[in-house]
């Protein structure tokens, strides 16, 4: 019996778990995927917004500004790269200048620090690759970029370091309310818990429906992107937004923390049945190109390495839903966490913890809580002396597996055996980046598979690229008669 079951291991579920691991509680995270951070958290703009655009009275506005301010400390403790590169909302004509003014006013109301309107010349000096037609921009120095899945993985790992359990491949199919607890069922297992925290992303309405008649629905709103190679690094130095419209923040051009460039997202409402539709489509990608050209005409699309799409969890209420259910005691919804959900994650986690503590005022602290996540070894960035020392301690750091990103076997093994470790090719790639370089895994893929099989006692044919059905190998070759057959 757990004190708390958290459903969903995206950045929200993971951040909540880590925050609650400060207390002497028995907590389990239930995730239907075969890894953490495989939902919306792995496919978004990766921006820690400054927070000037949501209505000053909204919960998402408050959470964003507060969350943004918490990022330095969180990323420092969890060893997650984060950079405050600042953002620019650019205006092209007089009407848009008014929009900048009202964003500035709104930002001030919300307490966003350092906002400033820059002239067209000042923008050109900072961003020489943007179109000449830009007249002015709202500069927000506190906007930043982060790797969202790394943050989620780090939150989850640190939560587990502090005693939280994680059950992967656990799709919650039904929840029974019993006296004083909930029985939570997957297709082959049942978990009981006194409190349920619903952080199931686009499926939060379905999960809530398992215990109550939902008073909200979540619609998937898809956003697609182009991702350019690191060669495009330097195209822009800040996160560049057009002026926002009813549809959202618009199509942005932004650097990523790894040095790539991101262009997108569009905004397309899908039907409630399309919660798996993370595919990109030719027409929308074309639309993204055309729209982005209004702010930057020189985007080098020939450096495109991939396109991807994420689903915003668009709530019928229009705002984040972070509250104990009024119908079902001890059931806390953390739903409708659309953008700026990533930016808000640290603040949302605190808010959820305080809701829990209000319901359970006698909760004791966890005396062993340690907020620090053991830093990852980044072999490529170390000095020769540090490398030497590392290899002396553990010779596996001397064997380079990924030649494009210079990643050692030691780093890969560490990524497998840490709490919330990687178990798939893409899972390893998200953690230590082998295969994310120029060869896209052509050389290191087989080596990483070999390491996975050895470290996890799996068969080669068990290894997945990503999801449960994404098998890579289909079986053994006809050994033996090879030589004369060829």
């Amino acid at each position: 019996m757990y004190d708390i079951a958290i459903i969903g291991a995206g950045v929200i579920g993971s951040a909540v778990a880590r925050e609650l691991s400060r207390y002497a509680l028995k907590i389990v995270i239930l995730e239907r995927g075969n890894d953490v951070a495989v939902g919306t958290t792995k496919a978004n703009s990766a921006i820690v917004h400054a927070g000037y655009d949501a209505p000053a009275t909204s919960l998402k506005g408050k959470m964003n500004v507060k969350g943004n301010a918490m990022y330095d400390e969180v990323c420092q403790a969890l060893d997650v790269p984060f950079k405050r590169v600042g953002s620019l909302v650019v205006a092209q004509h007089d009407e848009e200048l008014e929009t900048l003014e009202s964003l500035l006013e709104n930002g001030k109301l919300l307490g966003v620090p350092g906002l400033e309107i820059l002239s067209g010349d000042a923008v050109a000096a900072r961003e020489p690759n943007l179109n000449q037609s830009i007249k002015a921009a709202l500069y927000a120095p506190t906007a930043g970029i982060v790797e969202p899945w790394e943050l989620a993985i780090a939150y989850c790992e640190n939560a587990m370091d502090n005693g939280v359990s994680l059950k992967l491949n656990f799709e919650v199919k039904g929840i029974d309310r019993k006296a004083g607890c909930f029985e939570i069922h997957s297709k082959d297992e049942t978990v009981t818990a006194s409190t349920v925290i619903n952080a199931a992303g686009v499926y939060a309405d379905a999960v809530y429906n398992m215990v109550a008649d939902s008073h909200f629905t979540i619609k998937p709103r898809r956003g697609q992107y182009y991702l350019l190679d690191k060669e495009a690094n330097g195209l822009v130095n800040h996160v560049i937004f057009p002026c926002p419209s009813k549809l959202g923040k618009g199509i942005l051009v932004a650097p990523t923390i790894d040095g790539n460039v991101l262009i997108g997202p569009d905004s397309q409402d899908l039907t409630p049945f399309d919660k798996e539709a993370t595919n990109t489509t030719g027409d929308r990608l074309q639309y993204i190109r055309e729209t982005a050209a209004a702010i930057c005409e020189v985007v080098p699309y020939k450096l495109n390495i991939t396109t991807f799409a994420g689903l915003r969890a668009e709530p019928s209420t229009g705002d984040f839903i972070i509250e104990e259910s009024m119908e079902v005691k001890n059931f806390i919804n953390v739903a409708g966490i659309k953008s700026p959900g990533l930016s808000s994650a640290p603040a949302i986690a605190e808010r959820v913890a305080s809701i829990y503590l209000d319901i359970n005022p006698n909760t004791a602290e966890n005396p062993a809580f340690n907020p620090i996540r053991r830093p990852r070894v980044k072999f490529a960035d170390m000095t020769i002396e540090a490398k030497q020392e590392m290899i002396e301690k553990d010779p596996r750091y001397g064997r380079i597996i990924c030649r494009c990103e210079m990643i050692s076997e030691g780093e890969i093994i560490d990524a497998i055996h840490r709490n919330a470790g990687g178990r798939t090719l893409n899972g390893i790639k998200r953690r230590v980046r082998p295969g994310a370089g120029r060869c896209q895994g052509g050389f290191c893929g087989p080596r990483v598979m070999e390491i996975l099989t050895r470290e996890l006692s799996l068969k080669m044919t068990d290894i997945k690229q990503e999801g449960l059905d994404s098998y890579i190998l289909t079986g053994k070759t006809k050994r033996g008669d090879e030589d004369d057959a060829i």
Partner: protein
Amino acid sequence: MTQYDIVVIGGGPAGLAAAVEAREQGAKSILVIERDRELGGILQQCIHNGFGLRVFNEELTGPEYAERFIDELEAMAIEYLLDTMVLEITQDRQIIISNSEKGIQIINAKSIVLAMGCRERTRGALAIPGYRPAGVFNAGTAQRYINVEGYMVGKRVVILGSGDIGLIMARRMTLEGAQVLAVAEIMPFSGGLTRNIVQCLDDYNIPLMLSHTITAIKGKDRVEGVVIQKVDQKMQPIPGTEIEYKCDTILLSVGLIPENELSRKAGIAIDPVTNGPVVNSNMETTIPGIFACGNVVHVHDLVDFVTEESRHAGNAAAKYVMDESRSNHKGTVIRTKAEEGVGYIVPQQIDMDSIDGKVALFMRVRNVYHNASLSVKLGGVEIKRVKHRHLAPGEMVRVDIDKQLIKETQAEMTVSVVLEEGRV
């Protein structure tokens, strides 16, 4: 710090031939560094026949071809390190390496031979809208899974690109019981050798669809199908030509690209067309004492050419070690330039002092030509013309120029395609 006369980076056929030749020319301390667990380079996964016709006058498999050189290397007691990665080389010829046995080491070399080979092109090859399912492999990676690891990658296969590795893999997968449905090539001609098209596709009734490309991939977790479409002259898909294939695997064979991160970091000039170091007729790069050969310089389709070129580089490296004044850029230098119909020429410059007898020019043409000639000019004056019944981008051409034909001038040497009876 350890000191060697010659350090060879990469233990593929290029590195092996260079090392063996350098020893034959009298170089004493030679070290070959290989990051893989065995010598032989990419040949170790090419278990098909067809290697060595030029060099050994017989047909060998890749591993057999490599073995001949490995045996020589062993017989000559040339030192080598396996499972060892070269992390960096510097202008003053220091080499920083890493392995799990001794950690990081720094090695000094009088001369370095770069023989790092190439990798497969991927980027942008498949920037197709859709999901990102498993089941999309580089042909060379699939070759490794099948021939080295002993695992199959799929059952129903479509191949994009008709490079040699893709063609070879079409046959290999078929022999392993998979069904290869088609090879789609966006260009109006194949980038592979004619012999491979005949022996790997035609013999197995696998259709080669020229001017076709993949425009959609079905499946979310694993590939479930592809849509192939014909393209127009601007390589844009033509509506109404869609054909859908049910398959679980896509192999990409869209070209190779020389692996020059180390060279770039060291400050060696790179030719933007070959993606390899700019070299002179001695296979010496723009840094004196650093030589390069094999696929790291330009992509070869036949390993035999790699061997010849690498022997040449090994020879020059040995001579350099004995007499550093032999370095490049000393005497008269003639630049080579690819003109009409020719994609590139290696070497990019001819150092008159360094050539004895003749100089070999390697090049690729840009298009398919029948009954055409290659015209070599020096300062605008034709000095040689070679007739070819068939020229294609997939087949590297070698043209030898006798030294006595080359007057010592500062002029450029150009090569162009001259059509004799019209282009086909």
